[in-house]
């Protein structure tokens, strides 16, 4: 992975791993219909609103920084989406899952109901469009689905959420509630006693995002 030449403004576009998989499936699921913008790699603490040279130089440390090429892994890019909010917003939407990490024993279930804090003037809100939930390795789950959102896309995602294709093992579901049930397959553990993965939740309206670690422990008791 290298840096892009920033002497001229260019756009370096690639298909993601998921995009290549959907293109190969040839079932129409590779169809771009929407976009989002993100500011991955930007550290806003570099913005200096007291720069003595004036406001034109506040973003000096950010303006001309070189950027890395795109990553094909959809879990490693578009981490920090830009969002549209009313002017004058002082606090930004933040996701609250009610837990900072998930630990499940084999076969155990958990339902997560994400909430969005500070969204559209509400201290706590459930987003109308629901939440995008991405598990990095769905093999760790016997069940992984979303409920509460009745769109065709959400229902299609649920029907294939635990199906993997080769080494592409991440899975995305949409819902206002996310249901997890840990795998009961012992062979996945090998000589280890735990499986580790991550769960990323993105508010489809707010763009707020949170990633928490998920641990599956071998055996039926913790």
């Amino acid at each position, binding site marked *: 992975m290298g840096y892009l030449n920033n002497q001229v403004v260019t756009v370096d*576009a*690639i298909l993601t791993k998921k995009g290549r998989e959907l293109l190969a499936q040839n079932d129409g699921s590779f169809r*771009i219909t929407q976009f*989002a913008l993100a500011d991955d790699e*930007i550290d806003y603490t570099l913005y200096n609103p007291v720069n003595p040279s004036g406001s034109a130089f506040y973003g000096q440390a950010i303006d001309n920084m070189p950027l890395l090429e795109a990553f094909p892994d959809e879990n490693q*890019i578009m981490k920090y989406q830009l*969002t549209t909010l009313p002017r004058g917003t002082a*606090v930004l939407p933040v996701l609250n899952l009610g837990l900072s990490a998930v630990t499940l024993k084999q076969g155990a279930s958990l339902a997560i109901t994400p909430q969005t804090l500070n969204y559209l003037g509400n201290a706590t809100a459930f987003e109308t469009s629901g939440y995008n939930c991405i598990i990095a390795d769905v093999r760790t789950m016997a069940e992984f689905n979303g409920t509460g959102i009745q769109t065709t896309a959400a229902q299609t995602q649920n029907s294939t959420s635990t199906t993997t294709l080769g080494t592409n093992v991440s899975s995305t579901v949409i819902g206002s509630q996310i249901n997890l049930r840990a795998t009961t397959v012992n062979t996945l553990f090998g000589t280890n006693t735990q499986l580790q993965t991550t769960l990323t939740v993105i508010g489809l309206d707010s763009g707020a995002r949170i990633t928490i670690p998920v641990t599956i422990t071998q055996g039926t008791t913790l």
Partner: protein
Amino acid sequence: MSFKRLDAEDFVVSATSVQSTAWSTNEPILTTFQTSSVQTSGTSGNYYISVYQVAATLDEAEVQFDITYGNKIGSGSEFFDPSIPRLTPATSIYGQYRTMVLEDENSSFIYGDGTNTFTPNDFYALSIDRARYKEKLFPGTFNLKLINGSNTIHLTDNSNSTNIATFLGSNRVYQIISGSNGSPYDTTGYVANSGSYGLFLPDIGTILLNPAAINQSIEITPTVTSNVANGTNQSIIYDAIKSGGSFQLNAQETITSDFVFVRSRNSEFNYSSNPSYISGSTGEIIFPQFINNPQTYVTTVGMYNDANELVAVAKLSRPLLKDFTKESLIRVKLDF
């Protein structure tokens, strides 16, 4: 809102024809030719010789093209079974190309046109590696030099003297002539009584050479007695190509691009979910100046399907400042 729907007019599909050098060296002319003793002594060596741009043992070695020999009556290679004459690798090759090119098992290859045509029983075939010719060979760029001792011939296709492409079966075909860059040295570039030097089939990356015509020019001829050791005739033309040291060829492909125009209005995408944009876990914006005059820096464009799956991504080469006074239009090009 963080996702924005794209309209039909945000997409433009474009197809562009691109020509490039065929060889792994990225040079128009291939000057060095190597074979692999492992390949030629293996089963595939009974049928063809693979030609590399460098020694086959090197990491960067890649097959550039294969040389094979076909004979209608089975001469020029070993019998599969001595009790069944006429069935040899050369027969298999002849039948293979006859089916693929002529699309008629009762036809024979005819070289030349008008009053100067020739119908021999055999051919040498150069089959260009698919990764080299990509989609098709680019007519007019084929220049091959053959040398045997003090005899030299320069071959090319006749695309510059042909106004309308002719077809063999469903294959576009050009005659191979004596000349350069698609034009003959003399009137036709043919050989008296032997037709043309072969057939140039750009759409299947194949060049068929007429042994009789080549023999008239540089005095090399395939051994067409029965039960000849496999590989003998492939080596004859390989040696002439290697001695010539000059094989020029370009590839041609159509690249279909999907342009996506990503537009953000002045009121959109002015806040960020970046953790450095807020202070603490309560979501308070890091700088008071950002409350009424927020600024964000676009670095990445994500393109999604209806299921919110990220199918393509584009990175800008430098951050693009966005605030309530700016609108952005980013053109993303996806090649297929």
